[in-house]
């Protein structure tokens, strides 16, 4: 077992600090909603299609409601009104709402209002029930195939840009031993304030996250899982301006994991803070409901900041991400907290430093299936060295019993992985796991060694940062560039115009269910 290094009480105190840090954010969250959240509600009601020019119906309707200035009552409410007007289908609902000048839709009598809400709640319960049954089907397949293999789960990415090529590559990876397939998104999808529609074949640096692409890939992996008699997990990104909607689509299509971070969009995509905090909350509620494991993005911090100097920011952020997650109903087993093997390999003692950090993470979050990323930033174009370097991350992953391990690619510094790159990575990881599993039980870490010393130092600095966030506020800390060396302010960034205050009669039956209030 890693550690002790530090006292249990110190960890509890850090956790408490994080809980206090996220409190003020929730005051904001519970009073607001966003266009993306409202579109998610509509998607729940089956509004998954797209209109002309491929614009999603959910966008058409929400944009209409927003420009009419009535969105603060909640899209669900207007959806109900559209039904009352006789809408036969989602498209029909959009058209009816769109056709109508909003002021034409005056208030209803309290009784009608009450009935409408009850009907819509019933429809929401049915929709959520359907979701649940899909999730159950996923879980049943997993169980049928013998449950999950022992951790770390070997995670590889596919990123051809074309969903059909992705399927080929994903199947090949599964055959070579992958446990989790991640379909990387096309560059800048984070900035799209909608979810693209349909199967896609042209992405850059990845493939668009669409509900249809999710379906195609999950179907292929179900088939592959059955053939291999081993359940293969699928993950994608619930991140960016459409994070909540993607969580819904992913849950519906039975994905197993999602990249989902409370602050990544703010820091790395310059998405507005208020927007992000709101959307991440709803997306996480969906993940909690659908038994999806989230993967947080602290590893990104140490691609922009120096991994040695900023190690404590990873730990501090993990506590914060954990608190956001717990407050959204996620359980520890769903928290794939992110970190990585990123210290400059030209430094001395890097294996000791990486072991220290990985052990510290496990010490602080013993029940979370932490997500361990391979070296990326310091990867260079010597594929042989790159491979050797990745193997050390494999060693640390199995040693410290990470939950999920992203396998490093020997061509990391060149291109998104080729089929052969994944095979090479999987073969090495399979060997490492077999060779080294249980090594942690062979040794007692000396409390007076470099590993323990470094762990205490990093933890100490993390606590200082948490204190700063508690005292000055998370917003202020982000403003000072504390995370990933990136500075953002509360009203900057993209998507703030999609945030609005809920009216007192705001109606969101999906959230009611997700929050356990219905």
């Amino acid at each position, binding site marked *: 077992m890693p550690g002790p290094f530090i006292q249990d009480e110190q960890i509890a105190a850090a956790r408490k600090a994080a809980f206090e840090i996220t409190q003020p954010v929730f005051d904001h969250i519970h009073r607001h909603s966003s266009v993306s959240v409202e579109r998610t509600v509509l998607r729940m009601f089956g509004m998954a299609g797209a209109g002309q020019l491929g614009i999603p119906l959910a966008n058409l309707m929400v944009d209409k409601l927003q420009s009419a200035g009535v969105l603060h009552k909640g899209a669900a409410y207007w959806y109900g009104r559209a039904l009352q007007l006789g809408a036969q289908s989602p498209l029909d609902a959009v058209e009816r709402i769109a056709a109508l000048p909003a002021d034409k839709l005056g208030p209803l009598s309290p009784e009608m209002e009450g009935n409408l809400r009850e009907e819509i709640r019933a429809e929401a319960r049915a929709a959520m029930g359907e979701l649940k049954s899909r999730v159950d089907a996923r879980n049943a397949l997993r169980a049928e195939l013998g449950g999950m293999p022992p951790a770390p789960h070997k995670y590889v990415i596919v990123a051809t840009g074309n969903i059909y090529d992705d399927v080929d590559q994903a199947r*090949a990876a599964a055959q070579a031993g992958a446990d989790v397939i991640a379909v990387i998104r096309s*560059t800048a999808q984070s*900035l799209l304030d909608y979810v693209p529609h349909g199967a896609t074949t042209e992405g*850059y640096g990845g493939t668009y996250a669409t509900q249809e692409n999710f379906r195609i890939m999950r179907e292929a992996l179900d088939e592959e899982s059955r053939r291999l008699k081993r359940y293969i997990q699928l993950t994608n990104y619930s991140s960016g301006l459409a994070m909540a909607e993607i969580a819904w689509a992913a849950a519906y299509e039975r994905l197993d994991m999602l990249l989902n971070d409370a602050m990544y969009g703010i820091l790395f995509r310059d998405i507005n803070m208020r927007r992000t905090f709101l959307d991440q909350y709803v997306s996480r509620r969906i993940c909690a409901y659908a038994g999806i494991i989230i993967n947080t993005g602290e590893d990104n911090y140490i691609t922009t900041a120096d991994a040695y100097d900023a190690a404590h920011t990873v730990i501090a952020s993990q506590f914060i991400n954990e608190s956001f997650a717990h407050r959204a109903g996620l359980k520890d087993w769903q928290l794939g907290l992110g970190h990585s093997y990123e210290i400059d390999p030209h430094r001395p003692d890097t294996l000791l430093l990486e072991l220290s950090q990985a052990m510290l993470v496990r010490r602080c979050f013993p029940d979370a299936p932490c997500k361990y990323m391979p070296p990326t930033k310091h990867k260079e174009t010597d594929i042989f060295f790159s491979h050797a370097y990745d193997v050390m991350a494999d060693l640390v992953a199995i040693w410290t019993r990470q939950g999920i391990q992203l396998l490093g690619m020997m061509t990391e510094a060149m291109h998104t992985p080729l089929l*052969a790159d994944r*095979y090479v990575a999987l*073969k090495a990881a399979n060997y490492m796991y077999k060779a080294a599993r249980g090594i942690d039980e062979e040794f007692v870490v000396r409390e007076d060694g470099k590993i323990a010393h470094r762990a205490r130092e990093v933890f100490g600095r993390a606590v200082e940062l948490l204190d700063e966030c508690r005292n000055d506020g998370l917003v202020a800390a982000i403003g000072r560039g504390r995370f990933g060396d990136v500075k953002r302010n509360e009203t900057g960034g993209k998507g703030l115009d999609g945030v609005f205050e809920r009216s007192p009669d705001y109606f969101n039956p999906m959230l009611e269910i997700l929050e356990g209030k219905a």
Partner: protein
Amino acid sequence: MAAQTRQIIRPYGDRRDDGIIQMSFTLPVPCTERAKEAALQLCQQMGLKDVKVHGMERAAENYTLFIVYARTEATVDYAAIKIPEVVVHKMGFDELNAFIEKNVGRKVVVFGACTGTDTHTVGIDAILNMKGFAGDYGLERYPWFEAHNLGSQVPNEDLIARAMARNADAILVSQVVTQRDVHKDNSRAFIEAAKKAGIHGKTLLLLGGPRVDHKLACELGFDAGFGPGTKPSGVANYVVHALLQRMGKEKQGTHFEGEPT
């Protein structure tokens, strides 16, 4: 230049000029002896000799990875590969600042960003930010540079407009994502915009990124290109010399140490 003697070189594995190369590739067929024969024929078609298909790995049910060692008969005349003669040495931090003060007589203004949908800032930050790269200070640190770093995801037009507003001497564009040549497409779009704005051929236009080299940048319409491992001081030296040449204060085509090639 005087007639040169030829210097024929070829790959070296075990003994000089043995021409040995290593190769690997995947074929979309199951791992069988037949697949191995296909791999061999493929290599022979590529003109390789003494082909040894040493390794054959079942990468997946219908994909086989091959590891090959073989000899190539290709040669290159190394003497015929020209590189410009360096006549001006590379200046250090203090020397360059003093040189700007003396020869340009004002601060050199540069604007940089990672444009298009690319969010990779680490590269442009390495060139522009105080901290710099690999112990080499970034342009913000030079008292005789005025450096503006607009970050990432910046539309080409915005970068150009901001630079023009400050009458910039140079614009630095970074491009990191290159899948299916998206960096070339975006770079061409940048050059179009620069032409439209009338600064092409006037303001120095620099392109950089891991898959960029000088040749590519010039083909795309930039003045210079910088690839992996670029140090800010190299960029600083280039900008100053190129600027002086534009200003007519230095002979056109003066070659200096560290210039992009």
